[in-house]
Every structure is written in C-alpha cells, then in structure tokens.
C-alpha cells in the first residue's frame, strides 16, 4: 500500500491547490514587470496607437468626405470598439505566453517544479498575470478614446464585461496551446507567441460582419468565440440589442476551447517530464 500524506511523519497536510502559491507566482511576474518601466509603457503603447489609428479611420469613413460609408456611420465608434476588444484577445494570449517565456528565458522551470508549485497553480498565475497585463494595456487606450473621439467604449454597458471575459478566456486558451507547443518543440516555437492570434483575425470578423466572408469560410468563423463576440458587439452598437444567442455560442465554445487548452497543456507538461525538457529548456 502506498503511503499517503497523512502517514508521513511530520508532514503538514497541504491543499491540492494553493492560492498562496498562485500569489507567489503572480508576485514573481509583478516584480519583473514593475522593475522595467519600458515594459509597462510597451503594454499600453500598441493598444493606444491602434485605437488612435482606427479611431481616425472610423471618423473618416463615417463622414461624408469618406464617401458616405453608411455602415460605419450607423454606429459611432464601431471600429474603435472592435480594435479595443481585439486587443483584449491579443493581450490575453500574449500575457500567458510571455509570462511562460520569461521562465524559459531565465531557465527557471527546474527550480519552479521542484518546489511544491503545481501545474494548475502555475496556469492560474499565468492567467492572472495576463488579466493584469491586459488591463494595464487596454485601460489607458479606452480612456484616451474619450478626449480623442468623444467615444467611450463603456457606453456598451454591462455586455462589455461579457465581451471582455469571452475574449480574454479565448486568449488564455490560445496561450496555453502556445505554451504546450513551446514545451514540445522548444524555443524554436517561440515565434508562435507573436503570430498565432493573427491567424484568427480574418475569420474572427473583427472589423466586418461574418457575412462578408465567403460562404465556405463562415462556419469556420462561427466556430470561434471571437466571431460571436464581434457580431454581438456590432449588434449592440448598430441595433442597440444584446444578442444572447451570440453570447451563448461564445461561452459554450470557450468552455470547449479552454478544456482543450488545459488538456493539451497538461499533456505537453507530462511529456516534458518524460523527455526531461523542464531542465533543458532555455535560451
């Protein structure tokens, strides 16, 4: 019979999941972030620049000078909302992948996983850090949109929180997939952290309706939670209605994607222990 924790002399029974260890890892990434102001600035830089660029395109297309682009003119700030929400997905994925890569770059995985840290706690810390990084990146841009274009994304109301949650969860799923690929293929797969999410951009229908896509591509698009979020956002902006069907699809698909992301990550982590990759990976 195998001994259990209670049978070990002097052993302190420990929970399977420790918020304190999650907090320790969040602290580790926070120390890293706060120690470099260029990193914090970089987080907010791209969302702000994108918002300003698309904000002016939005204004131009909505004006008569822009050829009377009625579709855009019907919904004030539709492109600004789209670009800000797209950044939630992008930053959500990047937040998981970059925090993971920090461990690879510093060759720290060996130390982490001889400590009592469990993979699930680490993943929770990666997601928490992703949320923080996304908020640091996107909040200044949403605030600047008000003086620049007189448009507040917060006018979307409570549904905005649902859009945000669905997009960041999809970002986490993608982030876990990328982490799994890097664990499997090593630092050669590092570039995926920067490009994978852009494969989804055309089919996520960020700036145009799904109906614009060719008929054969539309089912692919509608298999993505992001497409349902952007369709829902446009319905809210143009028609002032909350499309519960799109929201339900987004949530349901996200549950599937997150389950898949976690399963792939855990498998890759197990395989990394089989191959000894936790000690060998690094620059």
């Amino acid at each position, binding site marked *: 019979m195998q001994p259990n924790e209670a049978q070990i002399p002097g*052993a302190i029974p420990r929970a399977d999941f420790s918020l304190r260890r999650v907090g*320790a890892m969040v*602290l580790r990434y926070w120390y890293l972030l706060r*120690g470099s102001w260029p990193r914090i600035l970089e987080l907010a830089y791209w969302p702000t620049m994108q918002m300003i660029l698309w904000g002016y395109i939005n204004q131009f297309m909505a004006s008569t000078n822009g050829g009377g682009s009625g579709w855009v003119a019907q919904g004030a700030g539709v492109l600004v909302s789209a670009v800000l929400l797209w950044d939630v997905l992008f930053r959500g994925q990047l937040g998981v992948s970059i925090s993971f890569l920090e461990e690879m770059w510093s060759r720290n995985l060996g130390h982490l996983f001889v400590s*009592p840290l469990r993979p699930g706690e680490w993943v929770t810390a990666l997601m928490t850090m992703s949320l923080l990084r996304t908020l640091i990146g996107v909040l200044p841009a949403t605030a600047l949109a008000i003086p620049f274009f007189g448009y507040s994304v917060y006018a979307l109301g409570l549904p905005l929180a649902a859009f945000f949650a669905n997009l960041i969860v999809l970002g986490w799923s993608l982030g876990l997939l990328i982490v799994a690929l890097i664990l499997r293929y090593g630092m050669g797969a590092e570039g995926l952290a920067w490009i994978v999410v852009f494969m989804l951009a055309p089919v996520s229908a960020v700036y145009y309706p799904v109906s614009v896509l060719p008929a054969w591509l539309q089912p692919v698009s509608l298999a993505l939670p992001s497409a349902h979020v952007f369709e829902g956002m446009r319905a809210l902006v143009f028609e002032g209605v909350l499309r519960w069907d799109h929201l339900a699809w987004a949530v349901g698909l996200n549950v599937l994607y997150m389950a898949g992301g976690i399963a792939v990550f855990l498998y890759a982590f197990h395989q990394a222990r089989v191959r000894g990759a936790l000690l060998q990976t690094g620059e």
Partner: protein
Amino acid sequence: MTSRPSTALSPALSPAIRADGLTKRFPTPDGREVTAVDAIAFTVPRGSVTGLLGGNGAGKTTTISMLLGLLLPTAGTVEILGVDMARHRHAVLPRMNFSSPYVELPHRLTVRENLTVYAHLYGLTCVKKRVQELAEHLDLSRFLDRPSGGLSAGQKTRVALAKALLNDPEVLLLDEPTASLDPDTADWIRTYLERYRLRTGATILLASHNMLEVERLCDGVLMMRQGRIVDRGAPSALVARYGRQTLEEVFLDIARASGSVESDGRILTGETADAAE
C-alpha cells in the same frame, strides 16, 4: 576531520532516498533508444551525505532529475522520505530542495525578490525574517537588492544555496555545488554545508567532480559509469579496495577502465570478457 551527527535511527524509518530499478531511456532521432540510467538501485540513509560520482554522461544529472520528479523514469521507483515520488510527489516536495549551477534563478529579479517568491512557494511563514536570516548566514546582505543576473559566480552559488535552504530541507540534492568557484568560495560553501548537516541532520546527495570535496563531505559514494552504479562505499573504503592513495585515483581507475558495464555493475574489460567466454 569533521564529526558526523548521530544517524542512529529507528529501523521503522525508511531511508531518506530509495531508488529501485531506476531506468531512463531516451529516444534518438534515428528511432533507436539510448539508455541514460540503467536499472540502478541504491539507498541513502537519513542524515548522511552521499556523493554521486561519475564522468560526464555517466547519468548523474539524469538520476538527480528523476529523484526530484523533474524527469519521469522509464522504469523503476523512487521513494523520498518513504514517499513514492511517482504517486505522492507533492506531499514530499515541501521537505526537500535542490540547487544546481545549471538551473538559474531569474536574472532580472533581485536576490530579495527571488528568495521572497520561493519562500512563498514553499509556504513559509515570516518570509521577510527568513530571507534576512539566510542573507546573514550566507553573507548575502550586501547583494539582497541587486539583480541576481549581475552577481559573480560565487555570489550566484550562495544565492542558489539560500534558495535551496529556505525551507530547511530534510533532503537536499546538490548538482556540482562548487562548480566554477574559486578555492576560497568553494571551501566556504563546503564548510556551510557541513555545518548545516550538523545542525539539522539533513540528508544530502551531491553530484560532484571534485574528489577532494567528496572525501571531505561524504559518508558514502555511488560511482556511476554508463548509466550504472559500478561501485559504492565509504570514500576511505574505496581508496583501500582499489589500492590507491586518493579517491581521485579511484575515480580515474573506474573512468578509464576499458570495457562495458554489465547489468550487475561490473566493468567487463577485455581480459574478463575473454575469461567469461
């Protein structure tokens, strides 16, 4: 000579480390397999310091990685403090620790930040006090607020040792604890380890290429070659058995012996192979 702490233990207590039939095979790109560790079996008594010796590629780091649970064995079992590492690893991880010059702490974090993060991971109470205490013990106070990446090799080794001692581990695994250190710093580390063992009665397993270090610190050694344990015993007993003056000469005898290592750990030289035939 340093006096050893009493290691007289109740027979009911299991060894600190027990490996049985421990094997690791890695696939090669051409579809074959290479055996890095081949069905080794050994125990490390509680409170002892044991050296894991062998040339490069002998299987020391692979063995340590399997003991830590970082690497899953192809076959065999590992028990640490009586706990099966394959099934209950997380029950015993808070009671052990590890240090290696080849696994670094994050460079951009300061020494204090690194130690604080790991103190929380090990569930310590009074984190600030413990970090301060270790900094004083290991002469790190001056570097606490400097980035870990900017330290010298000796300072980094002391920081790694501080991290390894945060939880006052009952079992400490050290991979080349004094590699690339100057003699003064290396001696300081060895003295610190001796005192730590005396104070706590901890079990230490260390892989090292420094035979003087092993003779000074270790109660027993395990000699590895080609993934197998080819000899074992107290350093002085090995020196006597091989008719040599130092453990380094014994190491060279084993490392330079021609022939393959048999499954029972014997080195089959040309002569013994002919006799066997």
